[in-house]
């Protein structure tokens, strides 16, 4: 693990804001030459600190008007087949994220759908039909923001 210094942190802040910035532009903003800035970006990527890129798409404009977070508790006797549940739930295209959690629920899912009736279809036909699903709690996403984090 590399411990990033202040310049690395500045680079990370810039790239989380806009991943398409060129190494020369980043260098200019943090006071490095283009090659020096390129080497640092390379190093941060190789260390796995920069894990990739995320497209910021306007889901509503693309016809996905609803995002719902589901808390799923597995039926008690299904706890043995976690892998099976994880495989089946991950295969549903509308299910964007699957997190195994400790607490009130076993899994936390993020589901995207065209509208509420489309969400109901996904929930009833794809998710509730999985044999291991016990209780489900749904919360409809109203707003979301990603913060830069402690860098």
């Amino acid at each position, binding site marked *: 693990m590399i411990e990033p210094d202040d310049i690395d942190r500045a680079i990370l802040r810039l790239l989380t804001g806009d991943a398409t910035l060129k190494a020369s532009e980043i260098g200019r903003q943090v006071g490095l030459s283009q090659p020096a800035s390129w080497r640092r970006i390379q190093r941060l990527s190789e260390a796995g600190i920069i*894990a990739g890129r995320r497209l910021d798409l306007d889901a509503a*404009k693309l016809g996905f008007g609803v995002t719902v977070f589901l808390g799923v508790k597995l039926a008690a006797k299904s706890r043995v087949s976690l892998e099976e549940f994880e495989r089946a739930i991950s295969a549903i*295209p*509308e299910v*964007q994220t699957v*997190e195994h959690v400790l*607490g009130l629920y076993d899994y936390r899912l993020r589901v995207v759908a065209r509208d509420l009736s489309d969400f109901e279809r996904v929930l009833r036909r794809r998710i509730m039909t999985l044999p291991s699903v016990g209780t489900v709690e749904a919360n409809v996403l109203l707003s*979301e923001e990603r*913060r830069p984090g402690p860098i």
Partner: protein
Amino acid sequence: MLDDIDRRLLRQLQADPSQPIGALAEAARLPLATAYKRLERLQSSGVLRGQHAVIDWHALGYSVEVSLRITLDKTNPRAFDEFLDAAREVPEVIEIQTFLGRVDARLKVIARDLAEYQQIYRGRILTLPHIADIEALMQVATIKNATTLPL
């Protein structure tokens, strides 16, 4: 309006956001000029809002990740705004979401270890205004993390 060509282009771009436009055009089976023009239009119409580098907080030594599901005291009409403003001031809060459902908001909090998490939780989270109830879900594993849309 978006057509199948736009969707094809976005599907390919989602699959690998950092690929050069030449590779993208080829993957989407489009002439370079068309791919370029389409991308420009998707950007200017606000469908494609940008690209952000994804930071792997584990690689930076943040091994604890907790979802805090928060119910607010809605008798105060300013509860949402004041809570959200204060939550934005906590550097370890990396995501803020608001919901329609049983919980009002969710904060994703990261920490280097449980001792640091406890410090943040007691010192920065419990002191946020207008909290009526908090439930914590601790992340065990991320099974699927596709912030992509099923285009």
